[in-house]
């Protein structure tokens, strides 16, 4: 089979919405890297200045620019948990193949993932690397009623037939047949559903703002750029319940008046893309997508756009710039995406988990979802639990569940003979909890009362064997690696904190602490987006909980 010619690729994508990323991927897939020649063709075709395109391509770490080190060169996860399972050693063992390190690739329950082109393998050594086994969430250990995972374990749930058999598209059907867009928004607002990507903004309020905003067309975007270290919940939803995400987007579109939507999927999930593409195809064939959906006057199209390796693109305004083919810096806010989103139009950006909850809620009454929470907070949260526990994995917990219940009763506690030294919150962004502060309920008010936050719900556990200074150094190095470089406090602060956790900074202890405290204070209060505001938490919590390790290893 002959490879497509340059012009064919350009013609395939030039007229499509958000064409830059797919066009870059098309050349990247064909040639194995992005050549100067390709960029010289793409820039005029899409009306992007060549210098801008060159700069933007270098922002994304998965785009190979060197024909000697193509996209097939292995990318080895050296995230916080994979480091505990030989990520660095695997990287060294694959050095002869041109392997490079990648940040957390979202398989903390199955270390160590290696990405080779469009293939994901897992293993701790080159000899044992295999395709990852399908890893469904285990049955809820607490016997709690679930929302997102309620049907995910039923056979063939990922297919349209299996999905329809287990209540699939009943929420959409109910919305279209019986409810006005306003009624859908009211229903979702009353359920108490809030953003599960970490920000926790009430979903119904967001949709109301998009519905009320001036400007057409409107958009729904599924943020599937799950880049937070220690988080792998969105991948499981996409892989085993893709139609739930599609149905959630459809309901969001009906409620807000959107005509088109995007799924912005992180580069590290190529298998999820295949699964999603198949599901979207099935949905079109069955009349759930496209024009006159279920014979109504409602039309909606979904496009998948694959990221290229940049954590910041999970920040919704950087995501929008990325989709638009611009340099993926976050935007200044206000205005917010609900009024000025994709191409300046009203846009609802929702996380995968949030969208997957919507069909379940629409099938039932708002109070059902409300009451899933144990305390004042409505609903459930998926926790990606990994690291030094007996049974890592994704758990759907009711808000208000004690962390200790999750760690010990649900996940089996630490490995034999070990004790838990620390656990991260919000993946990595919430820093560590340790000691008595592990006595906390899993909900935002609870975790915030300990100076952290629950966020996207990743929890990585480190037992008493672990060198917390090394863990902290790698954590802050991640934020430095992913800082976009726009605002000064984050660009310089993440770098300086990384150096200070690696033996750098003043030799005098008081001066070292003063520098770290000043950097952290200014980053938290003056950074332009959440990355810079949250990044110091790992360092501050390390200094707070482990003063001995600070003094001993600095």
């Amino acid at each position, binding site marked *: 089979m002959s490879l497509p010619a340059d012009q064919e690729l350009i013609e395939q994508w030039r007229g499509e919405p958000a064409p830059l990323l797919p066009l870059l991927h098309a050349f990247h897939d064909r040639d194995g890297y992005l050549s100067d020649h390709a960029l010289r063709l793409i820039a005029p075709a899409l009306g992007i200045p060549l210098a801008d395109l060159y700069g933007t391509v270098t922002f994304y770490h998965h785009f190979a620019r060197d024909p000697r080190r193509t996209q097939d060169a292995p990318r080895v996860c050296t995230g916080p948990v994979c480091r505990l399972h030989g990520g660095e050693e695997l990287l060294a063992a694959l050095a002869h193949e041109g392997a490079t390190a990648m940040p957390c690739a979202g398989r903390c329950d199955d270390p160590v993932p290696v990405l080779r082109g469009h293939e994901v393998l897992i293993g701790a050594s080159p000899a044992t690397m295999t395709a990852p086994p399908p890893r469904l969430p285990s049955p809820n250990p607490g016997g709690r009623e679930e929302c997102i995972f309620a049907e995910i374990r039923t056979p063939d749930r990922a297919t349209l037939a299996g999905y329809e058999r287990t209540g699939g598209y009943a929420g959409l059907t109910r919305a279209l047949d019986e409810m006005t867009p306003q009624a859908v928004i009211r229903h979702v607002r009353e359920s108490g559903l809030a953003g599960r990507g970490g920000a926790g903004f009430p979903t119904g309020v967001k949709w109301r703002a998009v519905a009320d905003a001036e400007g057409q067309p409107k958009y729904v975007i599924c943020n599937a750029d799950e880049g937070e270290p220690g988080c792998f919940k969105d991948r499981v939803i996409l892989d085993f319940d893709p139609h739930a995400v599609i149905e959630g987007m459809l309901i969001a579109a009906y409620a807000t008046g959107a005509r088109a939507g995007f799924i912005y999927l992180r580069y590290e999930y190529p298998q999820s893309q295949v699964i999603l593409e198949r599901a979207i195809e099935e949905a079109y064939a069955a009349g759930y997508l496209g024009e006159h959906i279920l014979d109504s006057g409602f039309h909606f199209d979904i496009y998948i756009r694959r990221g290229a390796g940049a954590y910041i693109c999970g920040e919704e305004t950087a995501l929008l710039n990325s989709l638009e083919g611009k*340099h993926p810096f976050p935007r200044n806010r206000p205005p917010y995406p609900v009024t000025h989103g994709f191409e300046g139009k009203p846009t609802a950006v929702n996380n995968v988990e949030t969208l997957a909850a919507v069909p379940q809620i629409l099938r039932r009454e708002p109070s059902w979802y409300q009451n899933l929470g144990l305390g004042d907070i409505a609903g459930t949260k998926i926790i990606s639990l990994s690291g030094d526990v007996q049974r890592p994995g994704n758990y759907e917990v009711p808000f208000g569940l004690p962390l200790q219940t999750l760690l010990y009763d649900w996940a089996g506690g630490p490995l034999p003979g070990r004790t838990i030294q620390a656990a991260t919150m919000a993946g990595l962004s919430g820093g560590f909890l340790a000691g008595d502060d592990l006595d906390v309920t899993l909900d935002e008010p609870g975790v915030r009362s300990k100076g952290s936050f629950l966020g996207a719900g990743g929890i990585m556990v480190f037992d008493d064997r672990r060198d917390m200074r090394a863990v902290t150094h790698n954590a802050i190095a991640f934020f430095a690696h992913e800082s*976009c*470089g726009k605002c000064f406090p984050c660009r310089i602060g*993440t770098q300086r904190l990384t150096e200070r956790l690696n033996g750098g900074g003043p030799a005098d202890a008081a001066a070292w602490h003063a*520098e770290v405290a000043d950097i952290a204070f200014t980053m938290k209060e003056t950074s332009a987006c959440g990355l810079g505001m949250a990044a110091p938490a790992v360092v501050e919590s390390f200094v707070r909980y482990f003063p001995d390790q600070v003094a001993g290893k600095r």
Partner: protein
Amino acid sequence: MNETEQIELTLTLDGELVTFTLGETLYEVAQRYGREIPTLCYDPRLEAFGACRLCMVDVQGTRNPVASCTTVAQLDTVVHTESERLARHRRTLLEMVASENGGAVSVDPLRGYASQELGLLIERCDARTDRFAGAHSGTSKLDDANPFILRDYDRCISCYRCVRVCAEQEGDYAISIANRGFQTQIVTEFDHDLRDSACTFCGQCVQTCPTGALADRKALRNA
């Protein structure tokens, strides 16, 4: 326009009731009333960018200070342009900037019109130049053989005023931002010399650079 003129828009600036026009930013309002809020990424000819964070001001009712250059003035807000907290942030930010610049804050004024900005601010805000020692961010391209523009990026602080003036004022789009975070560099397409790029040597980038990282080679030669 008459309508907006009739409704008097006011806010409280450092305890003083002041008027503003619709769409004005807090920075613009403060400047009109004689406040000298420090900035590094700001150039009045360019779209507000919000990168250096030096222009942060306190707005009553918000937890964190806000960047005055990107914050549009709202009716009845209570704004403070000076406070102990703001002074601390500004000092820390300037000290961090000085650290990436190797403390090279004394700059030949012949380098360019704005070249003294960083040095003057460090002096004014009592910032030290010996804190936060660590890696250097920019890498000079002194071998770019063009006769007009010296590219001394060892002094670059990544404010991107050069990139933005090239795009927004000149429409040349000759330079852009490569890499990310602390690895960021100012580059032409494929990181070639300026002569092999879309650069027209208008010199706008030189004149907006606040650190002398870009300099007028002719002026330096004639000195």
